[in-house]
Each structure stands twice: as C-alpha cells, then as structure tokens.
C-alpha cells in the first residue's frame, strides 16, 4: 500500500521468485536497480536502456516487462520472476536445459532476458511454431548466436513439454 508520507517514497511488498520481500523504495526507483542493487539479483542486465534489447526482461504477474524502464512501485503486491527464479543447479527449467543442449548460449549477457521472455511465451503457447517464437523474441537482441539456436531451443522445449503430461 502506498506510504502516507510524501508520495516520493513507498513501502512495497514484492514476491520475487516466490519469496516475499518488503522494501522502502523512492518513487523514481526502477525495478532493474532494485532487483540488482537492493536484492542482489544480478541476472537481469542493463544494456540498451530504451526498452529495445530485452536484456533486462523480468516477468511481473507473468507478463514480460523492461525492468530498465519500469518503476519498482508498480510491482507492489505482484509476483516478480527473474532468471534466478527459473531453476538452479540441481533442478533446471526445461528451457535452461534446452538452451545448453542446443548451443543457444554464448556470452550470456542476453540469456537471462531470452529465457524469461521464452518462459512467458510457453506459458501462453505451450508448443509455438518457429515464426511465433521469432515474433515473440523480436524484442530480445543477441549479437553472438545469430538467433537460430535460440529459436530452435525454445521450439524444441515447447514440443518436449507438449509430450510431457
């Protein structure tokens, strides 16, 4: 709930990767800086800073947003998913495994955003065709892979999840 003091700082509660976090944040705080500098979640990265490259993609209430241009206060009371919430060493998300298997990771700076964006797509369309993946990833830039293996990994992961009950 917004703080009654001057409306330039707010007490917010975020559920980040399933963990409730209560924070006081200034109104102008960007979600990317709160995640990285306050919560130590360094997976999302700042690159283009103008909502084009997707390296800062996180999910808020299941929807991909550009954390670099999204006020932290807007996520109050909502679920935030970052790449750190996808899976870890012991139990990886099928997308993470598919990215490794298909060679869809090179420098890794765009990978967090790609994975989180693909996660949202598969939640909406379990087995997307390549054109659908390409359309969805229009806002995720990569300079290393040339995209082919990224699209293949997402399509393969979608098809595989289709087979799983």
């Amino acid at each position, binding site marked *: 709930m917004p703080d009654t003091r001057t409306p330039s700082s707010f007490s917010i509660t975020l559920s980040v990767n399933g963990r409730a976090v209560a924070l006081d944040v200034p109104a*102008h705080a960007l979600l990317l800086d709160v995640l990285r500098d306050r919560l130590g979640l360094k997976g999302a990265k700042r690159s283009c800073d103008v909502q084009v490259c997707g390296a800062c993609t996180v999910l808020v209430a299941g929807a991909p947003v550009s954390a670099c241009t999204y006020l932290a206060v807007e996520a109050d009371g909502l679920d935030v998913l970052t790449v750190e919430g996808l899976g870890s060493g012991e139990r990886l998300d099928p997308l993470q495994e598919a990215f490794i298997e298909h060679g869809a990771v090179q420098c890794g700076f765009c990978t967090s955003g790609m994975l989180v964006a693909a996660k949202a797509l598969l939640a909406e369309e379990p087995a997307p065709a390549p054109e659908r993946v390409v359309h969805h990833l229009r*806002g995720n830039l990569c300079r290393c892979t040339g995209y082919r293996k990224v699209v293949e990994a997402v399509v393969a992961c979608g098809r595989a999840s289709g087979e799983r009950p």
Partner: protein
Amino acid sequence: MLPPFALYRPSSLAEVADLLAAHRRDAALYAGGTELLLLLKEGLLRVQCLVDVKRVPGLAEIAAEGEVLRIGATARHRTVERSALVRARCPLVADVARHVANVRVRNVGTVGGNLAFADPHSDLATLYLTLDGMVRLWSRAGERDVALEEFLRGPYETAREEDEVLTAVRVRPWPAGTAGVYLKFGLYERPTLGVALAVSVDARGRVAAARLAVGCVGPRPRRFPAVEAEARGQTLGELAADAERLARAAAEGVDTTSDTHGSADYKRDMTRVFVRRALRIVAARAGGQEPHARYPHTIVV
C-alpha cells in the same frame, strides 16, 4: 536512472484535476510510461511529480456504446490485442495491437499514452483515423470530444490543454462486409510508413465507402478524402485495376519529412507503392480471397 520525483496515485478524475492545477508544468500525466520515462531518463524533460492515472476507475475499460467502441485511455496494447469485444467489433484493431513495438512495451504501454504522445510513427493513430477516431478530453471545465485528425497537431503535439486528461478514444467499427488491411514498412524500431485502408462493399458489389490513412511519413497521419471519393462506386475489379492511379494521387498529396528513417521523396514513392498494395489486398479480401501478400520488411495485418 531517473531524476527524483513524487508519484501521486489519484483515484478520481477530480483528484487528477487538482494535482494538475496545483503542479501545472511540474507535473506529467503517467500511465504506462513507455515514452515518458525515456524522456525523463534522457534528461529531456524535468518534472517534480508524476500523476498516475491508472487508479482512476473506468479509464482502462473497453466497452461498446451502441455502434461505437470505447477504448479506455489506460487500456494496454496487450489488453486490446486479447479483447474479445475489440476482436468482434474491430478485428484489425486487435491484430494491429499485436505488432506495436515489442511484447514488453505491449504489456505496459497504453492506448491513451500512445495517442497523447503523438509520435509521428504511431501505428494506432494511422489505423484509428480510418475508424473515425474521436478522443475524449476531460478537465474540470467539462468533457469534449475531438476528432483524432484535429487532436494530432504535429510531431509530439496535440490539442490537449495542460489541464486536460485524455480519458478514452472512440472508434466507429466499419460496417459489415468491410475488408481492411494495415501495412507497416520499415527497418527500424519505428516504421518508415504505415497504411490503413478499409473498403465497404454494397449489395451490388460496388464500393460503398473507402477509408484510407497514411502515417509515419510526415508530421502526422492523415486521411485522403479525394482518393476515397474516387474509389466509391467502383467494382472490386475496377478498384484493383485503378489501384496504381489512386495510389499515385495519394502520393502527390502526402506531406513527407526527411529523417533517419528515409528521405522525403523516398517516403512519397513508398506511399504510392503501399497504397496500391493495400488497395489490391483489400479488393481481394472484399472478394473473399486472402492474397497471402509477403514483402520484405513489411508487416501485413
């Protein structure tokens, strides 16, 4: 990062008006923020506070008012894309929403923000012109409806006064039996050119009404009444055959600007090319066929 500001979250239009009156130029209206936050980040705009209109009830609603479809100013592009009502009344509005910027901007950006920012490259402004878009502006002094063509004055300039809030846009769905198309051509984040065309056919198979708008090439999108008039009365076959001539007429009348997206004369010739293509596609669609037109770096909706 952003320069500091206060954030007000009024829950009524009256509260919004008070805040605008109190802070005047030091306040900026804020909904999705996809354009506003960039201006603040780049240091091009300095404000003391943002007035968040997302908690004003009803501003995000999409509802039918008789024949007209009202889209609330804070409706997000993603909501318009998925709205069954929009798909039922104006299917092209739903489909074009799917091609605005990228999925993240569509999840956050709003229809009202897009129109109020008046970027000459806006897809919505061009399309809504063919749906007789009417923008509703609210202020303490009352409400007024402004035709979209008058509302959009020039690059980033609209008829909105400092104390007014854009609360909704009303579009008039095309009559039954209307075929439409939106073509978007360009390499960059923002299109070099956008063409919206709707053609309604009467019982005798002749064009009853044509609505043609071209955007992105000049300071603001515009309709082409002269070309629309010439299309009226033609059969679909005649329309397809006459497409080049009509497109040439549109190109002669268009006001184009040179910028990093292309030179003025290139945009003029592209107006000719894509108006003709739009006419041919719509003529086919009105005849029940889908021409499967595919052109490099062009989105055909």
